[in-house]
């Protein structure tokens, strides 16, 4: 039996999708553990922690993002069917959704306009570059939609995806605090608010911490916000003369 030298083994492994797939799962497990260790604080969101761990690891072993993504794309791919699956909790709570449809639609449009104008306003005030601004604009929309919108209005799609994730983590950290401050106890409103402001992160948070009703409304808010923003945002940027 002959033993292959270590560096040859590494060359083989680092070219395989297997390694980054495994690393992603392990980083996520470790991040969830670490988050629990510090008392499950939303300030250290497990996803952001996992992302930081992976970026650190990739820098350390000198792998580029494209090579990493060749393996991680298998996990990324599941975002599609997971988005489709949001129809299930929506169906389960269809009666409540139907009863509240008008208030939900109105709140959704108000929320989107607030999100977009406050983002662009704050960004412009502090002198963000045009491409940064256009990548920031769709930040409260779930990442696959945000990437499409960013491309359309002159932003950078992959930067948008990252900013969307940061928004999600920030929304999960601020959400419970703000909801408590406003004395909102209805899980439907809590879920809807989180889904609108923090897309999939908010939805995951709602399912895990606030229950199935909050999760269903959060999923609804995420879907509605995505749909409506895709139509509204190009109009808003045109109105503000940012084309």
């Amino acid at each position: 039996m002959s033993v292959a030298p270590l560096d040859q083994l590494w060359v083989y492994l680092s070219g395989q999708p297997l390694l980054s797939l495994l690393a992603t799962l392990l980083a996520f497990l470790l991040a969830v553990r670490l988050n629990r260790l510090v008392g499950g604080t939303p300030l250290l969101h497990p996803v952001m922690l996992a992302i930081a761990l992976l970026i650190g690891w990739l820098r350390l072993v000198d792998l580029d993002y494209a090579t990493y993504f060749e393996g991680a794309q298998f996990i990324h791919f599941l975002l599609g069917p997971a988005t489709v699956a949001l129809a299930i909790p929506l169906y389960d709570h269809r009666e409540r959704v139907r009863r509240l449809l008008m208030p939900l639609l109105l709140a959704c449009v108000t929320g989107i306009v607030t999100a977009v104008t406050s983002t662009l306003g704050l960004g412009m005030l502090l002198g963000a570059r045009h491409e940064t601004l256009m990548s920031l604009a769709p930040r409260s929309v779930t990442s696959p939609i945000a990437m499409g919108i960013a491309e359309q209005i002159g932003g950078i799609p992959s930067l948008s995806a990252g900013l969307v994730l940061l928004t999600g983590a920030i929304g999960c950290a601020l959400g419970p605090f703000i909801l408590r401050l406003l004395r909102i106890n209805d899980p439907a409103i809590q879920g809807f608010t989180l889904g609108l402001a923090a897309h999939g992160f908010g939805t995951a948070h709602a399912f895990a911490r606030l229950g199935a009703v909050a999760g269903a409304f959060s999923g609804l808010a995420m879907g509605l916000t995505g749909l409506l923003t895709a139509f509204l945002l190009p109009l808003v940027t045109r109105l503000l003369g940012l084309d």
Partner: protein
Amino acid sequence: MPMIMGMSILLACQTLGELVARGLTLPIPGPVIGMVILLAVLLVGGGVPQGLRLTGEGLLRYLTLLFVPAGVGLMVHGTLIGRDLLPILVALVGSTAITLAVTAWVLSRLQVRFRRERG
């Protein structure tokens, strides 16, 4: 086989959604249209098959894991983020807080009024 059935339904809806999005050149991603299609199918069919529930709820339980690969992409934009760090941070935190507060407040107000009108 229920898991395979469930996954097939999800992927079929996503495929249909992609076809609709591409075919009509809509700015909306295929999976979101797929979600609308699945909801319509469930409403018409009048129930969630067990396999679909198993697969769908399994995926939703680990939804956050699915965002990790895209998030690692932030590493590519280190310089751009560095140059605009302050506006990005302020816009993200400030606007998210404002959006959360406005949405929650508007919805709770509307809901109260809506209930009153209905008696």
